[in-house]
């Protein structure tokens, strides 16, 4: 492999290649906990996207954003692949318990956000692109994700467990996101999901057969690119989520004998940073500043915070990790929520980007808030 670094499976999405730059005080807090932060928080890319989008400089006109759809599908599939790789690689004991705790935590957040938003939305009569219940459900799904953290060696075991919980809650999220996307696309959910899984299994198997048999680096990257495009395309074609197809394929690649997972992990890792950055830029550029946006994003931030705090308490009760620590780790929203919102917006195919704008703004603000939150347990490292 040209890069020469050993592939790390099950790492988070914003895994930086270089250490965090010294000027960033935002991640310094988390570094004190023994967690390394992302080199460039999502907020920065959202702001870049905002600057480039039709609202400001206009470098990215609105029609061009819709044409970046295939890239968005590929980025989503890549995220899904990493989630799948991470899931499949976890063979440590206690994984089931962690998964359960993560699901509970995620579900609790989602219930809080969905319920409250539904009540608020039906009270306020804000014009929505979809049915209010579905809208609230999607907001709930998008808000229930947490940023996965990379754990450094000097982190305490509690911190490690907390990070694993944050990692794992992506998995039920993928399933729920698929349901949400298919519901918006007005497809029969069961059929679409089944087809996606079947197609992803086929594509994953084909990838497994082909990756190792490639002759030379260029051909291998052709196969990898093609596989990821296929996975993204499957999701886009069927109106379901590329996250699911990527996840299934990642699972297959990890579980099958051979080096398929390492190959694709290494190749995709070089692309993930630009792809994720692109996702955030597109999301930022799609923000439409309307009054309705305020009505949606402000409660969303607060509700999410509340939900996460409650969820941390529940997860703490289930796993024994201190609740305050869990809260600090679970509150930062990460990229997945924005990615799911992008996916839904893609399928919705409407010029009204209220959903995406709301989730993006809320994610940005949440990220800012989470950095400003007092960092507990600074002595735990």
């Amino acid at each position, binding site marked *: 492999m040209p890069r020469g670094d050993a592939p790390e499976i099950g790492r988070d999405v914003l895994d930086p290649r270089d250490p965090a730059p010294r000027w960033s005080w935002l991640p310094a807090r988390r570094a004190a906990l023994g967690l390394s932060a992302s080199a460039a928080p999502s907020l920065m890319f959202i702001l870049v996207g905002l600057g480039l989008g039709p609202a400001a400089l206009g470098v990215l*006109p609105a*029609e061009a954003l819709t*044409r970046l759809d295939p890239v968005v599908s590929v980025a989503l599939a890549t995220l899904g692949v990493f989630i799948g790789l991470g899931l499949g690689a976890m063979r440590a004991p206690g994984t089931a318990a962690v998964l359960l705790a993560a699901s509970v935590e995620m579900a609790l957040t989602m219930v809080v956000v969905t319920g409250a938003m539904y009540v608020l939305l039906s009270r306020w009569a804000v*014009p929505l692109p979809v049915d209010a219940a579905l809208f609230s459900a999607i907001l709930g799904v998008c808000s229930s994700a947490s940023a996965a953290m990379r754990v450094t060696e000097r982190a305490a075991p509690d911190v490690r467990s907390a990070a694993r919980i944050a990692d794992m809650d992506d998995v039920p999220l993928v399933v729920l996101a698929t349901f949400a996307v298919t519901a918006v696309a007005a497809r029969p959910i069961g059929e679409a999901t089944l087809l996606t899984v079947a197609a992803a299994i086929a594509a994953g198997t084909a990838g497994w057969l082909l990756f190792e048999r490639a002759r030379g680096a260029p051909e291998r990257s052709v196969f990898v690119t093609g596989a990821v495009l296929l996975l993204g395309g499957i999701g886009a074609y069927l109106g379901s989520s590329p996250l699911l197809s990527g996840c299934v394929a990642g699972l297959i690649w990890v579980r099958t004998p051979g080096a398929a997972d390492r190959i694709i992990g290494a190749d995709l890792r070089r692309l993930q940073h630009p792809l994720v950055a692109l996702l955030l830029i597109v999301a930022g550029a799609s923000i439409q500043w309307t009054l309705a946006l305020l009505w949606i994003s402000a409660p969303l931030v607060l509700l999410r915070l509340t939900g996460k705090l409650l969820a941390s308490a529940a997860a703490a009760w289930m796993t024994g990790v201190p609740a305050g620590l869990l809260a600090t780790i679970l509150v930062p929203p990460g990229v997945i929520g924005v990615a799911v919102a992008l996916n839904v917006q893609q399928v919705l195919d409407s010029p*009204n980007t209220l959903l995406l704008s709301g989730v993006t703004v809320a994610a940005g603000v949440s990220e800012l808030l989470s950095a400003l939150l007092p960092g507990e347990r600074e002595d735990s490292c």
Partner: protein
Amino acid sequence: MGPMPEPRRSGRRLSRETRLLIVTITVSAVVLVLLARLRFPEPPRAVEITAQPLERLAVRASYDELARSVARLEESIAPDLIVLRLAPQGVSTPQRLSDVLARPDASSSGVGHVPAVRIDGATAIASIDPGARITGIVGSSDPSATAGILAVDPIRRIARVRVPERPARRLPQRLLSELATPTYVVAVEGTHAGLTLRPVFVGRADRFASPRWTRPLLPLGGAVVTRGALFFTLDGAFLGSAVVEDGMLAIVGARDLLDTAERLTSMPAPPADPGLAVQPLTVALSFATGASRGVVVSEVFPGGPAAGVLEAGDVITELDGQTVDSPEHVLLRLGTSYGDEPVSITVVRNGETRSATLRGHRGPVPASTDDDALTFASVPGAGTAMTAVHPGSPFEAAGLSAGDLIVRAGNVSAPTPAQVRRAIADTDPGDFLLLAVRRDDRQRVVAVQMPPHTDAAR
């Protein structure tokens, strides 16, 4: 073998290459600029290099996408649309087989189909003229599914219609001012088979103000739609309806339509009749009256709001501070001020400018006290001929003109003038009198509606 040594990344070697590169860049840039001066002699408009490539990616002739959008739109808005069947209005002309064979393409039935859009569970709005009647709903096999006109705004020609009940959802709207032209919108029209939806291209156009409506309208230019067609954006938002303004088709925004519908619930009042007649200001009239623009008052009806305020020969130059240019503008502006809102006018009389106020007046103003609305002459054995028909009378509205021979009035054939007058007197105000009238060797049947609450001799 003696190959040349590998180029070392020494400073000297690098700078030589870099120098060469910079020279290349400079020379090429100079050449480019010189050639550009020759090639593009007029100052180049800003070449949007960054916008173009991404737009290039976007603008692929995606007609299939347009078709898909229209199909999806139909699914989502079909429940909110109803096609009404209207009875033929106006003058009904007789036809023989030879006429039909001579003009096979012309439609003769006069039956109108107009689409209506639901605004809540049991009401809808549609473009319907005053005096029209709904005979049914297209596409509904249920005999109890009826529609009826609740109220009509005669100036804007929008009606509030009662329709079969159905849970309605809030129709998303798009303001005309928000619509980014040029773009495609979907026009919904009614046929005897149901709805048709088709994309219509709205070009880049400036909105213009109309005396009938509050907000500016969007002209449709060359687009071919029928009056009353409804417009939706491709993502399902209600945009407006097609009206004819100044001889041209234009879109009036959804907001205005809904405001009209709302006004029709609370104030089903006829327009305020200003009680005058106006005519356009020609050059000669302009010299004679001393006014450079405006509208000339041709007749003031006694008993109307303008009586005592204006006289024949006055030139109305401004209404509420806005200059007026056409008679239609004046009449509509005065007509739309429902109720008693006073309207301030600027008038030029004998070269002097003065201001006055007109107060709105409910109900029609009698046009004339002239009793001789009709003159009859007897044609023995055939009937009664009409030698004159007073303009504005219900006979003129029914399509009769001087020279028509009444061959049957009510139940009497070949009536004498006295029998015609008796038939008129026997008809209650507001009721219809059936006449058979002959003109130019053609006979037809005419229904004349007697005006309510007035002298029967009209």
